[in-house]
């Protein structure tokens, strides 16, 4: 299989050159934060405090990570527990969100029934309301439902995140109704149509939703919803380690930044590859 895509007949050479030129110039700027984060994690303490800061590390070292792992071993709750907590929240939250939001998006995009358009409009509008002021009512509702101080305080609301529903609905709108009707003629029930016809067709959207959801849940500190030490999340535990010693732990802090970033980043790379690979030649239009 050739790596290069076949040249499209209506593209000019000059235009292609322009595209590459623009992408390289801007790409360099956009790459700086990531490079900085990676390099910082491997800098010895004196280089971290070097002023002006340098982008690239001169004498790379693993000390920061070694320090981090020592500190991890000293926590009161075994550190693996924090990792488990965040993995649990991320996996269950993302899985549930994908299922719940996709099911709703399917019927909202492919059917008209009383209240369907109104409900969708409300979802999109709710996206715009500032999250800062809804924290208190949110807390009160969760405490009524006895969800405070459990994983569910983070996981269950994540199921109904408006962003995911909106995204899935927009992509499902592109699926021709005739496909669904054809499946019905063949005797398939809604449940099967949803799983076997609709979901495979919106794979790019599915993976994009997972990226958003993982990025959000993996970074959840949830310190105002979960108090029990053994239920606390990884970002919270790591931030506690870092704040334990201000200047002395700057190296550890840089290592933490990279450590936290690695999972969403890896998922992002895998998902992006998949989005581009699976859909390279097949559109969902008839």
């Amino acid at each position, binding site marked *: 299989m050739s790596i290069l895509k076949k040249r499209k007949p209506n593209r000019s050479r000059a235009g292609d050159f322009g595209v590459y030129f623009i992408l390289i110039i801007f790409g360099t700027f956009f790459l700086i934060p990531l490079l900085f*984060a990676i390099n910082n994690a491997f800098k010895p303490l004196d280089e971290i405090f070097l002023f002006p800061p340098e982008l690239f590390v001169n004498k790379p070292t693993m000390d920061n990570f070694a320090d981090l792992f020592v500190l991890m071993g000293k926590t009161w709750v075994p550190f693996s527990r924090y990792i488990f907590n965040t993995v649990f929240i991320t996996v269950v939250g993302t899985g549930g969100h994908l299922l719940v939001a996709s099911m*709703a998006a399917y019927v909202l995009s492919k059917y008209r029934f009383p209240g369907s358009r109104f409900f969708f409009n409300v979802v999109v509008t709710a996206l715009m309301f500032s999250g800062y002021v809804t924290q208190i009512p949110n807390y*009160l509702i969760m405490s009524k439902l006895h969800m405070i101080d459990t994983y569910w305080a983070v996981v269950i609301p994540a199921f109904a995140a408006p962003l995911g529903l909106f995204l899935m609905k*927009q992509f499902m709108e592109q699926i021709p109704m005739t496909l669904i009707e054809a499946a019905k003629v063949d005797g398939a029930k809604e449940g099967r149509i949803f799983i076997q016809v609709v979901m495979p067709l919106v794979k*790019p959207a599915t993976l994009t939703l997972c990226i958003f959801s993982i990025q959000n849940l993996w970074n959840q500190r949830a310190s105002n919803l979960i108090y029990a030490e053994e239920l606390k999340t990884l970002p919270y535990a790591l931030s506690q380690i870092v704040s334990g010693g201000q200047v002395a732990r700057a190296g550890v802090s840089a290592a933490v930044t990279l450590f936290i970033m690695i999972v969403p980043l890896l998922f992002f790379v895998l998902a992006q590859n998949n989005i581009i690979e699976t859909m390279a030649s097949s559109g*969902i*239009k008839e």
Partner: protein
Amino acid sequence: MSSNYDNWKIRKKREALYTLKSIGKHKVQYAFLAPYAILFILFFIAPVVVSIFYSFTYYNVLNPPQFIGLTNYINLLLADDIFLISIQNTFMFAVITGPLGYMMSFLFAWLIHELPRFLRSVMVLIFYAPTISGQVYMIFATLFSSDSYGWANALLTNLGISSKTIYWLTDPKYMKVVIIIAILWTSLGSGFLSFIAGLQTVSEDQYEAGYVDGIKNRWQELWYITLPNMKPMLMFGAVMAITQSFGIAEVTMQLCGFPSTDYATRTVVEHLIDYGAYRFDMGYASAIATLLFLVMILSKKGVNALLNKVGT
């Protein structure tokens, strides 16, 4: 007269009956929607409704809210000078960075889509990296630092343009420009990714049909094939752009301080955080949120009308 009224009554009855029947026919659809709807009403609608209610009260979080009618809104619009500054700033940031960030997201997604497969994956990663890595503020703080180590000042001196120290982040003359650059740098977020995914779903057949029909260059292809096929994603990206550009607060707080010099980069959400998190006046903060919400709904209506013109 009365027969008219009777007719109206009969028509309404028929409509209601039709609606009921339609609800009955769509039981499966309601079942699909139910899990989401229940959770959404509980964790998103209810808190918003309660917040809007708070906006008519004095609520300091410790004591129960006291109903005070429109006082919060009156104070906001007539007595709060800083709020008026923050409205101006938010509008300026939103009007500049919203459309620009949106167009950048689409432009880059579209350009990247032209690349061969492997390069495409790499480029998506590079352009989305600032959103994942979140080191942007620290880099900007260094870039525009006002002491002799700031990269921007050093560059100006070396090029011989100016040897004066420019206080990028504390001089109201420059703060807004720096903030706008920083926002644009991080604007390739959810909209950008949905465009990338959306471009994958436009079928190759349509492009091939386009060559036959005499689509001469990439611009024509963009306007007549790509954009019309991307309408749902364009709408998604637009709503995200509105949400982000009216919600600007973190960048300004991180770079210019909180509060910033002369409130030069104070935004509405910053004002809201000030009252909600520091002065414990939730009622007032809720009133700010409610006003902002109304403005955002209006701008979404405007964008909706614009997007309907795409590809015509």
